[in-house]
């Protein structure tokens, strides 16, 4: 123990000796220069703190961004960019939402399969009345064009028109049929003048319709009905 402590004692004695008898120290002028610089910096810091306490929000923001030596402005810019992207995405989503609600749902677009047997059953009648359907077909296509607001949605109205076709044909074929039946009744009743007016009206409305043939067809049908 004594042997280990002795070198330590010697070390401490030598170090103390050098501390006590070492020479050299900075000049008073150098001390004054350094302390003056330090005091000036301390005053500036105090003044900056006072200014900061009195500063408006714009100056505070500026000091926060650039005054601390850290690059806080980059964090602020990144934050603003994130907010901008978020707002942009939200806006785009809101713009697209109404169109999505207007679109024909896929369940409706797939529905033509159901009325297909009805359409097949009525095919002979449709062939007979096809010439009469021309004006209505034109009107219907115009209506369809109005229903299709954009090219993106073009397929959906086509699908829905296919689904609605049998119903539209029922409506179309009922009008000349009723008129022709009315004409038959008028002829049977001997009201020639009114029958003639109705005939002319039918010719005007359905120029391609073979009215007499239709009348003959209806005349054969009517007793069974």
């Amino acid at each position, binding site marked *: 123990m004594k042997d280990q402590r002795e070198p330590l004692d010697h070390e401490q004695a030598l170090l103390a000796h*050098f501390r006590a008898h*070492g*020479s050299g120290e900075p000049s008073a002028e150098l001390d004054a220069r350094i302390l003056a*610089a330090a005091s000036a910096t301390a005053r500036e810091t105090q003044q900056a703190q006072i200014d900061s306490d009195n500063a408006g929000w714009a100056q505070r923001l500026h000091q926060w961004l650039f005054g601390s030596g850290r690059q806080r402005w980059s964090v602020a810019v990144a934050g603003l960019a994130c907010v901008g992207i978020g707002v942009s995405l939200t806006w785009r989503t809101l713009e697209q939402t109404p169109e999505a609600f207007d679109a024909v749902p896929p369940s409706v677009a797939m529905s033509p399969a159901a009325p297909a047997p009805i359409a097949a059953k009525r095919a002979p009648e449709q062939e007979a009345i096809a010439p009469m359907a021309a004006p209505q077909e034109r009107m219907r296509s115009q209506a369809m064009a109005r229903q299709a607001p954009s090219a993106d949605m073009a397929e959906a109205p086509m699908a829905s028109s296919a689904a609605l076709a049998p119903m539209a044909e029922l409506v179309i074929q009922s009008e000349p049929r009723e008129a022709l039946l009315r004409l038959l009744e008028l002829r049977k009743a001997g009201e020639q003048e009114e029958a003639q007016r109705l005939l002319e009206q039918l010719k005007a409305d359905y120029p391609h319709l073979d009215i007499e043939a239709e009348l003959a067809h209806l005349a054969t049908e009517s007793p069974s009905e």
Partner: protein
Amino acid sequence: MNAPLTDDDAALLRRYRRGDAAAFNALYQRHRLGLFRFLLGLCGDHALAEEVFQETWMSLVRSQSEQREAVLFKTWLYQIARNRLIDHWRKTGRHQAGHDEYDEGQHAQADPQPGPEQQWGLSRDSERLQAALADLPEDQREVFLLRAHGDLELNEIAELTRTPAETVKSRLRYALQKLRRLLATEELSA
């Protein structure tokens, strides 16, 4: 009323960064002599020591950074001073001679321990102390000065000089042996 200036170095530095000039004054008085003697002992040139000493304190004054928590203020201060001096040597093209191999080899042999009468009869003449220091290899002198004037522990010196602790320990031991021998010899011969 000012708080009593008994804070540790880090607290004084924080107070100075908030604009307390008295805190800097306390910090300066605490370390001025040790730092200056470390620089003077290392370079042996009073003017150069003053220049580097001023640059070190000025860099501390101008810097806005706080002291890192893991490092003592004193270690930080001496590291700044040491780096400044090395930069100066590099600029002026001073060649740092590597005496380590020679001196460590030489002092590895058993050192005749001087008796207590010789220990306490060590030269007190500052010029002789300075001459004995100048006779040390640079690495040993640096470790001895950091220990003597900076009052740094061996692990702190190792961190500051980026040297393994064992190397620092052996350098200090060789430096002490050589200084003891040199000063005792001079005392005997006087």
